[in-house]
């Protein structure tokens, strides 16, 4: 019984955060969001994409983003897999993970406003073995900082390929030479006629898409000298976006079995998908950049008899991490 009480106590107190606020005096060292670099090139040695098509893929990538003057944004993102799940199951039928996209954004809202932003003076955790307590001390009410807020309409092109696991696809909608998957999955298509061994039921998919959406960018560069605490900062350069994706071309790779090519089709395709994402870096300093994206790719419609009109086969979540180099490239907007 004691064990359970200790366990519950630990669980409860693990999440306990004590917040202390206090008034302090401070002087501004930096508070200019226009003090930024408008171009960044990122080399991502590792990304991971967890998705319905083949489970997961990991690899490397390149990203670039550029703010051209006051009105234009440019984005580029390329990722290629060196660890694509199920890719090695076949030398002919599967595709390696690859994603490349590029686009432009037109800024229609571009303003600097003063907002109170939180400044954390100290944060510490203490534990007595059973309970952990986190104490955070921050400036009460935050500190007024100049926050640059940008909103843009964006659009671009995207090319995507990956390995496709036929498992969990609606077996009445997926067909092989016109025959439903539920009927063909146990016949000669997936059996090696020479060895009578099963052939892995994996193929490939390619999507050629255009996307359009809205992008929000926030930039702030606040550095203050707090009496008795030293330098504290709230520095941010982050982007959030939501896109609608339209794929006029959804290519499911034909399946080669026993030397013969079998025509693979999915009867109810959805040409539309969506995604939301977030990427972050420092306005001026070089460092590491993170991008997180999730959504539903165009592709397979859910069968009509399902309660939720959402096909998990299209869902994905991608995280990439890399080193970026920020540069000041003309044209650069630094306020009117």
């Amino acid at each position: 019984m004691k064990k359970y009480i200790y366990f519950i106590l630990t669980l409860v107190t693990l999440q306990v955060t004590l917040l202390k606020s206090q008034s302090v005096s401070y002087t501004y060292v930096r508070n200019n969001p226009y003090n930024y670099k408008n171009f960044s090139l990122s080399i991502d040695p590792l990304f991971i994409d967890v998705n319905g098509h083949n489970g997961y893929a990991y690899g490397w990538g390149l990203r670039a983003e550029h703010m051209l003057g006051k009105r234009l944004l440019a984005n580029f993102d390329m990722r290629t897999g060196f660890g694509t799940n199920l890719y090695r199951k076949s030398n002919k039928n599967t595709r390696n993970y690859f994603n490349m996209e590029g686009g432009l954004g037109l800024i229609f809202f571009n303003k600097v406003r003063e907002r109170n932003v939180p400044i954390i003076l100290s944060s510490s955790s203490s534990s007595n073995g059973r309970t952990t307590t986190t104490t955070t001390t921050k400036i009460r009410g935050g500190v007024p900082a100049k926050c640059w807020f940008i909103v843009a309409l964006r659009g671009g092109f995207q090319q995507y390929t990956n390995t496709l696991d036929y498992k969990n696809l609606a077996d009445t909608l997926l067909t092989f030479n016109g025959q439903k998957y539920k009927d063909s999955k146990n016949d000669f298509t997936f059996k090696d006629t020479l060895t009578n061994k099963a052939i892995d039921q994996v193929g490939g998919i390619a999507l050629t898409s255009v996307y359009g959406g809205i992008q929000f960018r926030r930039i702030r560069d606040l550095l203050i000298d707090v009496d008795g605490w030293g330098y504290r900062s709230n520095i941010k350069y982050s982007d959030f976006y939501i896109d609608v994706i339209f794929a006029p071309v959804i290519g499911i790779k034909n399946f080669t079995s026993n030397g013969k090519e079998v025509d693979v089709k999915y009867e109810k395709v959805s040409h539309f998908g969506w995604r939301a994402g977030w990427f972050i870096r420092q306005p001026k300093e070089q460092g590491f950049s993170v991008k997180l994206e999730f959504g539903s790719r165009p592709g397979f419609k859910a069968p009509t008899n399902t309660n939720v009109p959402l096909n998990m086969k299209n869902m994905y979540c991608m995280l990439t991490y890399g080193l970026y180099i920020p540069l000041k490239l003309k044209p650069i907007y630094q306020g009117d």
Partner: protein
Amino acid sequence: MLSKYLNKILYSMKKITTIALLVIATLARSQTTGMSCQYFPGLQLGVVKVKTTDAPKGSYAFAAPLPILLFDKIKGHWYTNIDLSALYFAATQTNKANDDRVKISKAEGALIAGRLGWMFGKKPDFKFGINGNFGLQTSNLDSLKKSFSQRNYFNYGLGVLVYKKMGKLHASAKFGYEIYAKKNFITKGRGFYLEGTVGYNVFQKYGISVSPCFYSKGLTYAPEGGSINAPAKARVTSLLIRFGLTRFF
């Protein structure tokens, strides 16, 4: 009697003051200079040679893996190095690992290893220092195909380094001695490394660096499937040249 004690106290104070001044002079903040070689990832060219007394394996050589994942940073008084090159290379081979496209696993060096050092000298354009090394490494002693099947061992070591700045050109040199050990695998292991780096500041704070390196490891180990009581000996030498992005301070 009293003056004797006073003299002793004064002498001790002098000593303490002298030592304190020396420490302060050493730790005094010099203007922050240095370079951060961010091979994240970077590229390398070179050759790795394995010479073993394990009869069926003999001697073999292979081209060093192309991609590396390595940080080597000198900033102010600190020297830090984090190396995940062999682990990263192994990950990059996942798509190839199951078919005949891999003749031999090229993973050599750090799975995860680090160095931490302190640099002395008040002049911002010249510093020298010492560092300690620790990590987990791998060598393809068994002539395997799959990188993730290779056995690993620990490394412990000490090193010295020197840094010089000449305008836009930054240079550093490192030398270190390491001990390798792993229960039921490496009974005796010794090695050394020599690394040189030349960086050139191209644009704003950024540029490129070129780093020629030489590593030599002598290992006494239990051969694959063999006994620790009948060990084999191996000499693993790597001659490399690395290229990567660099940030200058």
